[in-house]
């Protein structure tokens, strides 16, 4: 089964046809390099439209995925990720009433997380030689975290037509990075520090992000361990 392709195809249709998508990408890094990643896609402000689209077989030349397909792909993805070394507690919450999809998992190290995701993607023949998959988007050395988002995720917006891309302007993309000790400084000037100094947030739109990959890029320096 082509899980990644199925999920990407579903996201492509949903993003293309919904006016307001909200994405939250939330990573917590513990002092030992382990952590939790959470990813939330909220399409609840377009649920009438999504429901009417899901009732169709195809729209604008694109095949509309069936709900059962998406459920199956996500469940399969969950199983595969759970089997990977260094990954645990994989949870995927699928809310088809409000169209909110939440993914989260614990990881032993950022390397284990990246390796696991890359392995699942390259399991599929058509992604074996895709360069974007090799991209490392997380780097942690105990005192600083360098992060972006996987190049691979840009596949979705780059496949959209111009009129569909326009809709992404109304969406939001929020990237949060959390730590167990206070942040000392960070390089991205668009980022904001939480009042407790333990989390850094960057807000942008999926539309801006598709052409400016560095909007989310950040190197965050932590205060020394006590």
């Amino acid at each position: 089964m082509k899980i990644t392709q199925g999920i990407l195809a579903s996201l492509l249709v949903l993003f293309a046809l919904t006016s307001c998508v909200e994405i939250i990408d939330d990573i917590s890094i513990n002092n030992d390099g382990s952590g939790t990643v959470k990813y939330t896609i909220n399409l609840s402000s377009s649920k009438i439209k999504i429901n009417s689209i899901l009732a169709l077989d195809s729209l604008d030349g694109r095949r509309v995925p069936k709900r059962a397909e998406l459920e199956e792909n996500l469940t399969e993805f969950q199983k595969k990720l759970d089997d990977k070394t260094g990954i645990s507690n994989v949870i995927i919450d699928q809310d088809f009433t409000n169209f909110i999809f939440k993914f989260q998992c614990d990881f032993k190290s950022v390397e284990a997380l990246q390796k696991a995701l890359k392995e699942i993607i390259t399991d599929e023949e058509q992604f074996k030689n895709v360069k974007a998959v090799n991209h490392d988007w997380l780097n942690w050395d105990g005192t600083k975290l360098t992060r972006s988002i996987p190049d691979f995720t840009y596949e979705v917006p780059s496949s959209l037509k111009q009129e569909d891309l326009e809709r992404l302007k109304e969406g939001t993309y929020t990237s949060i990075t959390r730590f167990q000790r206070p942040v000392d400084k960070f390089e991205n000037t668009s980022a904001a520090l939480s009042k407790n100094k333990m989390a850094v947030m960057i807000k942008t739109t999926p539309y801006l992000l598709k052409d400016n990959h560095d909007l989310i890029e950040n190197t965050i320096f932590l205060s020394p361990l006590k």
Partner: protein
Amino acid sequence: MRLLTLLSILATASISYSQQPEDLIPKDAVSVFSLNNFQLLQKVSLDELVQYDFMMEIQQELFDGSTTGKSLKDSGIDFDKKLNIFYGKIKNYEISGITFAIKDQKQLFTVFDDFETEAPMYTGVDLYASLFNRLLVKNGNALLIRVDPTIEKIDQVTDSIWYARGYQNPWGDQDYYDIDQDEEGNIIDNWTDDQVENFDPSTLNTTEEENDLQKNYYELRDSVQLVYQERYFKDVCDDLFAKGNNLLKYDHRFASQMTHVSEGVFYLDNSRSLQKTQNLWYIETMFPSLYNDINTLYTGNVILGDLFLKDNTAEFHVEAQYGPELGSIYEEMNDSKFDKNTLKYIHKDNTAFFTYNVNLRQAYEKAFEVVVPMLSDEKNIQVAYNLLVLELLNEFVNKDALFSTYKGSMFGSFNGIKSIKTRKIEFVFDEQTYDYEEKEVEAEEEMPIFTLGFSTERNDIPAKVLKHLSKLTSRFKNMGEYWVYEEAILDAAPLYMIMKNGLFIMTNDEDLAKNHNDGYGAEAIKGKKAASIKKNGFMYMNVDWGNTIDKFPADFFSARQNEILNAMRGKTGNMELTSTKTTKEKTNFNLVYHFDNSNGNAGKHLLDLFNSVYVISR
């Protein structure tokens, strides 16, 4: 005087016996649209014409760049004679094509430039062929035709040859196709567009052993298709050119219709359409006498129409003819008094609405009278059982209650796009920690607003149903003047139900439910328009085309489709469908379209309209 008479007779004879394009319509055609006068289309350039979505289906010949800068008048077609478009689906094959007169054959082949001359099959008939179509020219008239065997026929013959050669099931190696199925058994197509485009059928391992001298399944299927294309093409042409049969000779109703002095003529033989397709193959095989009865019932069922074009009006006059038995059912069904209460719920500024008045009780009684004897003649246990159930239901069911609840008359209206209240989830961030939580808030989404209402004498029955449903779920609520079913439409929007004035109305229009549940009062449709609806037959429809198009949700159409809709936006036009009283023999319908022809290109306007209807109905 004698000389004058002789000359008149000779002139009449020469007109009568000179061949016309319609003489080349095969008798297998079950639907024909004939343009008697398409002068007004001459202004349309071929480049514009080929852009229309409906042209894609009709003709590939014009899509090869050879038409650049030309208009229809450069195509060599004789505009003083009729152009006929026909289609027919016969049991084993389909035919489609166009017949027209040629004014300049040299010019014609600058458009049909993919056609190569072939050896003639009949004396006096020139034959040309392209990849998909054949062009036959006789006495200055042309028949552009395509004959395709049905997929069922091709599969049947291919499978038969395949298994006779001792091969296994060609679909045995399922993994090769990577077919996945969802829980409902629907095939999930995982192939990308690139994979589909680059797919090479010859790579399929469909023979037990690879043998270059043997055709694989798909090669065999292509050969079967080609052989049957040739065979059926010859059958059709033999009938037309060797035996001299054509639709004009076969059906006098078509011949009579073609004599009408109108801009266009429409013909659809429903009875042959029913008999010659495979839709009823199961009944034909299992219940042959019932199949004969159904055919008898549909005999004489034909739809004939005329198109009249005036400066800023297009009128379609359509006559639906029936056989006596089917006609008797329709006559009873359409013998219904107009329910004037429906008018209270149609706003005077409404852009699209219809009313439909039928007497379901009378139709049921008549259908029972006609159908039961048919079923009684069938000596089959399944039919006998169903007949027994039908007769028992007829005895025991309270028909008074049933047909008083649902009398059959109804109305519907499209009230444009409105923002409706829904709920959405927002994530609220805590500035201290950037932790976030979900919060349900009110939102607005755009939705097409529809109203559908039925005449009833027993609103107490749906009220009973709703009362019980409201005990089962809190989503059904009695609001006093109306009922509401929360999140009924697309799991998000409420459905309102109004039970007043002898009507049961369902709508997603909050304004109608809350503020006008007794009708629009002074704002309801009135005066001439209302009078015209009341005196009408069983069906009436009125569409303010320009305003309705303006209110279509653009998001639901592709960029190209939106271009077409945009072309119609801003154009004013009103479409009105009226009908006469139904008799045993026929019902007449008139569709009148008034449009703004200030730019003088009525042909373009009509093509835009036709294409919009085609795009929307696809």
